[in-house]
C-alpha cells in the first residue's frame, strides 16, 4: 500500500512540479527518477545542515522550526477543518441512518447496512455503468483527437501558437455555464447543432433529438465533454512530443527509417507516459463529472445519462438519505482511489521501460 501511494505521488508529480534540482528530490522522486536515493537524501540533508541557522540571528528573528510551523500551520488547519474533518464525518454518517432533513430524529447505528444496500442496489449499478460508458468514450475520443492535434501542432507551421491558444479556450470555461448553453445548441428545431448535422447528412432535424432521445442523450454529453477537454489532452501530449529529443529522429533519419516507422517506434512509445498521464487525469475528472451533465440532461431522459454523481446528488439532496448517500460517496472515493492506484502501477512500468 505504501509503495502504491508513493507511486501515485510520483506519477502526479511531473505535471505539478519540476523535478531535477537535487535539493527537491524527496524519497518518492528518487524511487523512480534517480538510481541512488540515499545520495540525494544525504545531499538534501547536507544542504539543510549547511543552512546557517543563526549565523546572524536578530533579536526578533524566529527559529527555522518555528517559521516552518508558522508557515504550514494555517494551511493544515484549514484543510483539517474543511477537507479532513468532513471526510471523517461522512465516514461516520455512512454507518448511521441519519437524514439531513430530520436533524432532530434519533440517529441509529446501522453498521454496514448502508454499504450492503448501496452495493446491492441495481439503480446504483446502472449509474456506474452509465459512468463507465461516459468515461470510456470521452477518454477514447479525447485521446485520439488530442494526440492527433498535438502531432499536427508539433509540425510547427506558421501561426501555430495562435491557433493553439484558440483551441485551448473551451477548457478554460465553466462547464456549467457552457453546458447550459449547449442545451440551446442541441434544440432539435432551432438549435445550431441539429441544423448543421441535418445540413451535412440530410437527416431531418426532428430526428436529431440529442437530449430527448434515449439513444442519443449519452452521446450528447460525450460530445460536449470531448469538445471541452480535448485541448487538455492535446496540451499534455504536446508536452510529451516536445520532450522527445531531436537527435533520436536524426539517428532514425540516418538509418533511413520511414516516417511511418519513426512514428510507431519513436513518437508513440516516447509520448506514451504523457498520454497515460492525460488519461489518468481525465479519467478521475470524468468519474466525478457532475456540473455539465446536470445542466445538459439532469440525468435524463429517464435515467439514461444518470452518472454516479447525479445519483449521489439525488440521494443526498433530493431523497435526503444522508447516511446511505455517504456510504455511496465513500464507495465512489475508494473506487477512484483504487483504480487510480492500479493504473499508476501500470504507468510506472511504462515509464521504466
Amino acid at each position, binding site marked *: 500500500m505504501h509503495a502504491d*501511494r508513493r507511486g501515485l505521488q510520483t506519477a502526479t508529480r511531473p505535471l505539478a512540479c519540476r523535478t531535477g534540482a537535487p535539493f527537491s528530490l524527496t524519497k518518492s522522486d528518487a524511487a523512480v527518477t534517480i538510481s541512488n536515493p540515499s545520495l540525494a537524501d544525504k545531499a538534501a540533508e547536507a544542504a539543510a545542515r549547511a543552512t546557517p541557522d543563526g549565523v*546572524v540571528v536578530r533579536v526578533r528573528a524566529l527559529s527555522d522550526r518555528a517559521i516552518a510551523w508558522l508557515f504550514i500551520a494555517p494551511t493544515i488547519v*484549514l484543510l483539517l477543518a474543511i477537507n479532513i474533518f468532513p471526510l471523517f464525518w461522512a465516514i461516520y454518517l455512512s454507518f448511521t441512518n441519519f437524514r439531513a432533513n430530520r436533524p432532530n430524529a434519533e440517529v441509529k447505528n446501522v453498521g454496514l447496512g448502508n454499504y450492503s444496500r448501496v452495493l446491492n442496489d441495481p439503480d446504483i449499478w446502472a449509474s456506474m455503468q452509465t459512468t463507465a460508458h461516459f468515461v470510456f468514450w470521452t477518454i477514447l475520443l479525447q485521446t485520439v483527437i488530442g494526440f492527433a492535434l498535438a502531432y*499536427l501542432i508539433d509540425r510547427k507551421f506558421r501561426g501555430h501558437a495562435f491557433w493553439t491558444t484558440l483551441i485551448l479556450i473551451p477548457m478554460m470555461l465553466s462547464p*456549467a455555464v457552457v453546458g447550459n448553453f449547449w442545451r440551446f445548441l442541441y434544440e432539435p428545431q432551432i438549435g445550431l447543432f441539429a441544423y448543421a448535422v441535418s445540413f451535412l447528412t440530410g437527416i431531418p432535424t426532428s430526428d436529431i433529438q440529442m437530449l430527448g432521445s434515449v439513444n442519443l442523450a449519452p452521446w450528447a454529453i460525450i460530445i460536449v465533454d470531448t469538445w471541452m477537454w480535448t485541448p487538455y489532452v492535446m496540451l499534455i501530449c504536446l508536452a510529451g512530443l516536445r*520532450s522527445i529529443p531531436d537527435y533520436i529522429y536524426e539517428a532514425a533519419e540516418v538509418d533511413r527509417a520511414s516516417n511511418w516507422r519513426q512514428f510507431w517506434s519513436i513518437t508513440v512509445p516516447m509520448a506514451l507516459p504523457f498520454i497515460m498521464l492525460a488519461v489518468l487525469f481525465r479519467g478521475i475528472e470524468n468519474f*466525478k463529472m457532475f456540473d455539465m451533465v446536470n445542466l445538459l440532461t439532469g440525468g435524463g431522459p429517464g435515467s439514461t445519462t444518470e452518472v454516479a454523481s447525479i445519483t449521489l446528488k439525488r440521494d443526498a439532496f433530493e431523497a435526503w438519505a444522508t447516511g446511505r448517500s455517504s456510504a455511496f460517496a465513500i464507495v465512489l472515493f475508494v473506487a477512484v482511489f483504487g483504480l487510480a492506484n492500479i493504473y499508476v502501477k501500470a504507468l510506472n512500468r511504462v515509464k521504466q521501460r
Partner: protein
Amino acid sequence: MSPAKTTTVNTAHSVVEPSSRSKRIAATLVIVYALVTMLPLVWIFLTSIKSPPDSISYPPKILFTPSIEGYCNLFTTRTRQTPEYIASLPAPDGVCDAVTRQRNMVIAGPSNFLPRFTNSLIIAFGSTFLAVGLGTLAAYGFSRFKVPLADDLLFFILSTRMMPPIAVAIPIYLMYRQLGLSDTALGMMLLYTAVNVSLAVWLLKGFIDEIPREYEEAAMIDGYSRLQAFRKVVLPQATTGIAATAIFCLIFAWNEYAFASLLTSGSAQTAPPFIPTIIGEGGQDWPAVAAGTTIFLVPILVFTILLRKQLLRGITFGAVRK
C-alpha cells in the same frame, strides 16, 4: 514554391524539420478544428445580440439586425402591461426602456444578475488571494524545512481532490448549517480556498524548489533574517509561479458549479448556478442567457489570451524534462 527551393529549405534546417507540404496539411487540419471548436462560442455571442424572435427562428439566423434586448432582459425584471397603459407613460428613459415597451412590457426593477456576478467576483478573487497566500507560505515551509511526514501530508492533501464534489458537499452542507455558514460568501470563500490550497501548495512547492537555496543563504549571511530572506529574495523570484498558480485558482473558483448550486441559494449565490435559471415568458430567455454567459465568459477569455504563456507553463508544468 519551387521543388528546388523546398529542398534547400529542408537542408538548411535540421533533418527532422517537417517538409513544407506536411506543414501545410497540418496547418489546414488544425485551423479547421480550431474554427469548428469556436463555433459554439461564436454562437453564444451572436445569440446574445439577437432579438428573442430571431434567436428561435428556423433555420438558425446568421444574418440579423443586432438587438440589445438580451442584455436589457438580463439586467432587468419586467411585467406585462396593456398597450393603453404603456401609451399613457411618459417618454421612455433609455434604450432598454424603449425596447421593453415595444414588447408591451415595462421594467419592474433590476434582476439578480448583477448581485450574483458581484458574488462571483468577491468569492473568486477572495478565495484565490487566500489560497495563494496560504499556499505560498506552506509551499516554502515544505520546500525548505524538514517537515515530519511531509510526503504523506502532501499526498493526503492532494488525494482529497479525488473525492466527487457532491460527496464532499454532504458533510460540508451539514457543517455549514451548524456554523451558520450556509449561503454566505465567507463560507464559499473558505470552501474554495480549501479546495484550491492543495493544488496551490503542490504547484508552488515545485516553483520554490527551483529557486536555489544559495540565494537565501547568501542573503542571510549578509544579515537578513529568514523572514526577510523569504520576503525579499524568494518571493520576487517566485512571482511567475505565484501568478500561474493564481490563474488556476481563479479559474476554478470562477467556474465552480457543484458546490455553489448545493450550498448557496440566495444572497451568496454565484453566477454559474444563476445563469441557467434566467427565464422569460414561456421558457428559457435564450438571448438573456447568452448575454449572461457572454459577460461571464469574457474575463476568462481575456485571461486566457493575455496570460497564455503562464497558463501553458502551469498546465504542462515540468512535464517537459529535457
